[in-house]
């Protein structure tokens, strides 16, 4: 395969992505926004009863030990995985080519693999006011006890579907449909103005 020779992908956020500090930041920025641009975003789905086998495949291929249970998730910086629906998982890798690594491992007896590396845009929000800003968009409880580290959630902001993984005590990775990404990004920046934000 010649994946490493592929040109850089275009970000849907480009014209609206302005690195630097914005909003009410005179007293410091309380959230940091970034597009993480992972090389691979996969959806893995297990047939009913095959979830454990699929979790085992994820461990073998990525080294990530997915906890069993609704919305369970894990990450190690370069890679992350979380459940977002019954029997369904999102697996993310900084590098491209994760689909090929899984291709033989997800057999028809276990489930399916769908490559969404282009179709989803990954946006990270971090900082002491991350929960505050997220609460403006999503009607789910972002408090740490209710939304533990590594866990995943599926929810929406009006018409925009989002999968959200907590990747730090005050950090969330949001996966949105690419076509909505710019609109969501603009709204996210707008909502972050109040607390002061930095785009990295």
């Amino acid at each position, binding site marked *: 395969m010649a994946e490493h020779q592929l040109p850089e992908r275009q970000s849907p956020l480009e014209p609206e992505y302005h690195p630097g500090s914005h909003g009410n930041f005179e007293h410091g920025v309380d959230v940091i926004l970034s597009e993480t641009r992972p090389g691979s975003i996969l959806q893995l789905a297990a047939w*009913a009863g095959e979830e454990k086998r699929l979790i085992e495949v994820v461990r073998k291929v990525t080294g990530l030990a997915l906890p069993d249970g*609704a*919305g369970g998730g894990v990450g190690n910086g370069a890679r992350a995985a979380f459940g*977002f*629906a*019954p029997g*369904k998982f999102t697996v993310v890798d900084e590098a491209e080519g994760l689909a090929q690594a899984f291709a033989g491992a997800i057999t028809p007896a276990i489930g399916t693999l769908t490559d969404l590396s282009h179709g989803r845009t990954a946006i990270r929000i971090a900082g002491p006011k991350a929960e505050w800003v997220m609460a403006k968009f999503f*009607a*789910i409880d972002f408090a740490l006890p209710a939304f533990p580290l590594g866990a995943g*959630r*599926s*929810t*929406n902001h009006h018409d925009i*579907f989002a999968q959200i993984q907590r990747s730090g005590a005050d950090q969330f990775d949001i996966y949105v449909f690419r076509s909505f990404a710019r609109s969501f990004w603009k709204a996210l920046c707008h909502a972050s103005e109040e607390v002061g934000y930095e785009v990295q």
Partner: protein
Amino acid sequence: MLITCPYCGPRDVIEFTYQGDGNRERPQPASQNLDAWNAYVYDRLNPAGDHNEIWQHSGGCRAHLRVVRNTLTHEVLSTAFARGGHKTESRS
């Protein structure tokens, strides 16, 4: 109104889409019994009280749920995956 998704937990009703009366039974695909098809496609129960309904958690995990809801109070009595499996009793 909150509906407790067996996967996602309690979520606001705006995340869900009503997918119809849960009492309907679809005839076998090859069935030519038009009365049965007619009942399935058009007949709906409209009880004042507990009602079996299908809801999709369309703004979340997208699973379809069997929901028992009281049409007089909006109280959701139980939810379960339409595919079967886990059931959540919500009545307090």
